[in-house]
């Protein structure tokens, strides 16, 4: 008997005329690892939520068809009742954490499932060991990095010993090493794993089967090798283009000399230097916590270094890695116009360039996560600055949109200096002229 079965599922969210999923059928066998790929807004997350029972119970909406997981029909059993059979790891670890102490966070699900009290701490500890986070057990969750927090969240779901593990873009905030570590642990469990990712190479290396979802339907359901031959070009993994470190020859528009910065006496940057020149796109890479974002903020003028010199010739704009920060105004067009003194015409053009034409009068919070990413991008690109600093601009962005963004940054490269902070080495290879890697050297000279 199949572990999970989706039978002719059609689902529409409340107040949405277009179904998010349309006549979807599939079966999942115990132990198989399945990669779920597809563009933003294609229905991947909805499919994963349907398997966890969150659709329709949590989100409401119109649900037709049947989903059965571990013998439990999701129409009759609530997500909490399915929790022993299926466990879900979501994209943003900050939105999953209930407790302030790591060990308690991992024990929470076990308590909910009615695990005998004498087994709770041993199982919580074993799960933390499994994800390599045993040393974090007594730490406060708010003191953890994104990578550490996502490991803790993974431990919290692994502790439940689920038969089906659902991973909804679990590595979008992690560096390549952290992402590999999370997926390796998840895929070696022995449970069936359904993993959705916008960096397809990661799940494609580990899966046995691929689902490609587009416009609410499964366009491709095939074993990995067959799928690799049939997937759209942007989804087929390639080796990142190697980048050099030699600086360009254009005019220097932003220069950081021996910059030092510390948060509450915790040093993050020590005597770092970086020069950005007009006409070049620079990729800033390195592991989580090495100071990439801090260096980018210093370059953008958002942080004042404790020592060292910063020189900027022209306006700088900075794109935060959290698109939730670009939801201040009541209309999409007003949000995009903020950086240009309310010039709605320029805002409309910027929105059209990121594919948000027609969304001008929507409330920014009504946008999907992928659309919010694009709104954030438009809100910064609209200013057409001389120094453009983008912090993780491809987080949660699908491969075709990444290709569009890379093409756009390349097209406008001559007008400015561009710094792209990214963990996405494939994107860096597409977009950048050179790479500056933190965490490998004490001084970055360019």
């Amino acid at each position: 008997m199949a572990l999970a079965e989706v039978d002719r599922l059609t689902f529409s969210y409340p107040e949405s005329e277009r179904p998010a999923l349309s006549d979807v059928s599939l079966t999942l066998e115990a132990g198989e690892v399945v990669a779920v790929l597809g563009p933003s807004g294609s229905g991947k997350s909805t499919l994963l939520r349907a398997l966890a029972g969150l659709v329709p119970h949590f989100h409401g909406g119109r649900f037709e068809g049947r989903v059965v997981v571990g013998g439990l029909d999701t129409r009759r059993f609530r997500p909490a009742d399915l929790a022993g059979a299926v466990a879900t790891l979501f994209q943003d670890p900050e939105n999953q954490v209930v407790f302030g102490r790591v060990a308690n966070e991992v024990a929470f699900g076990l308590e909910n499932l009615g695990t005998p009290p004498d087994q709770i701490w041993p199982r919580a500890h074993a799960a933390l060991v499994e994800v390599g986070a045993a040393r974090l057990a007594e730490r406060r969750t708010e003191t953890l990095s994104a990578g550490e927090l996502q490991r803790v969240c993974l431990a919290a779901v692994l502790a439940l010993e689920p038969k089906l593990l659902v991973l909804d873009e679990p590595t979008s905030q992690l560096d390549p090493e952290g992402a590999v570590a999370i997926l390796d642990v998840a895929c070696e469990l022995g449970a069936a794993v359904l993993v959705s990712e916008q960096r397809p190479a990661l799940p494609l290396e580990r899966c046995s089967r691929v689902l490609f979802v587009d416009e609410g339907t499964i366009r491709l359901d095939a074993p990995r090798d067959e799928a690799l031959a049939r997937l759209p070009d942007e989804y087929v993994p390639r080796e990142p283009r190697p980048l050099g470190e030699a600086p360009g020859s254009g005019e220097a528009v932003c220069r950081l000399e021996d910059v030092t910065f510390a948060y509450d006496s915790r040093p993050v940057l020590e005597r770092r230097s970086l020069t950005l020149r007009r006409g070049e796109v620079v990729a800033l890479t390195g592991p989580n916590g090495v100071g990439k974002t801090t260096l980018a903020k210093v370059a953008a003028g958002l942080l004042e270094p404790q020592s060292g010199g910063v020189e900027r010739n022209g306006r700088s704009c900075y794109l935060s890695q959290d698109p939730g920060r670009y939801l201040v105004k009541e209309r999409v067009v007003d949000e995009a116009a903020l950086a240009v003194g309310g010039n709605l015409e320029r805002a409309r053009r910027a929105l059209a360039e990121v594919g948000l034409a027609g969304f001008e009068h929507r409330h920014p919070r009504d946008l999907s996560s992928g659309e919010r990413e694009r709104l954030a991008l438009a809100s910064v690109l609209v200013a057409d600055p001389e120094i453009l600093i983008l912090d993780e601009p491809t987080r949660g962005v699908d491969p075709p949109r990444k290709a569009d963004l890379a093409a756009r940054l390349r097209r406008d490269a001559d007008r400015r200096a561009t710094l792209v902070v990214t963990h996405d080495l494939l994107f860096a290879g597409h977009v950048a002229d050179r790479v500056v890697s933190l965490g490998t050297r004490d001084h970055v000279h360019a």
Partner: protein
Amino acid sequence: MSPVPAAALLAALAAVALITDRAWVVAAIAIALLLLCLRAPRGRRRLYLVGTLGSALSVLLLSPLVSHVGTHVIWDGPRIPVIGYLDVTSEEIAAAGIQALRLAAVGLAFAAYALLLDLDRLLQAAGFARRSVLAAGLATRLVPTLERDAAGFVEALRGRGVEVEGVRGLARLMSPLVAGSLERALNLAEAMEARGFGRSGRTRAPSAPWTRLDRLALVAAILLVLGAIWL
């Protein structure tokens, strides 16, 4: 110290500050709690201390102007429509001083609770009303989350060349902040339900037994409240 006796001790200190009429006792409690709060990391304690001490200072400065108590006038001001004559008496200053100290003591007791106690373990100790205690724990964590969100909005605006200035500028962020916390609450509720929250038959992870210090703290809390009522 275990969180239950520690919370009881903080609650007792706040209660004593509200019950007693002796200004020096309230001042001693406020100073002791302030020193305790200073043990928390600087970044976390700032909002609590600024909020508490700022409110206490406001009471100290404004209360004598709007109340009409006492006969020893120190300053006689103009008549303001609706409020009436502005004057300050020595009795009003004394009353405002003790009210400000009380507010500071109660606020600092809450700050110490939020900053220094292991709220999770407090939750574990609550065998009853677990949902309410969990809600209280999550609400306590809302303050630093809102502070982080506000800083994020300001930074994203500055990153676009938009400066947020003054109270009016910050007030404009209230609506997105509230909307953001509602959205976060929904995401959290979804994640909690996916981990079995709300299912019947839940169990509780065993907690560490109380030490002698814990028992002493609980007795001290009871004695403090009784002493304040008695004296």
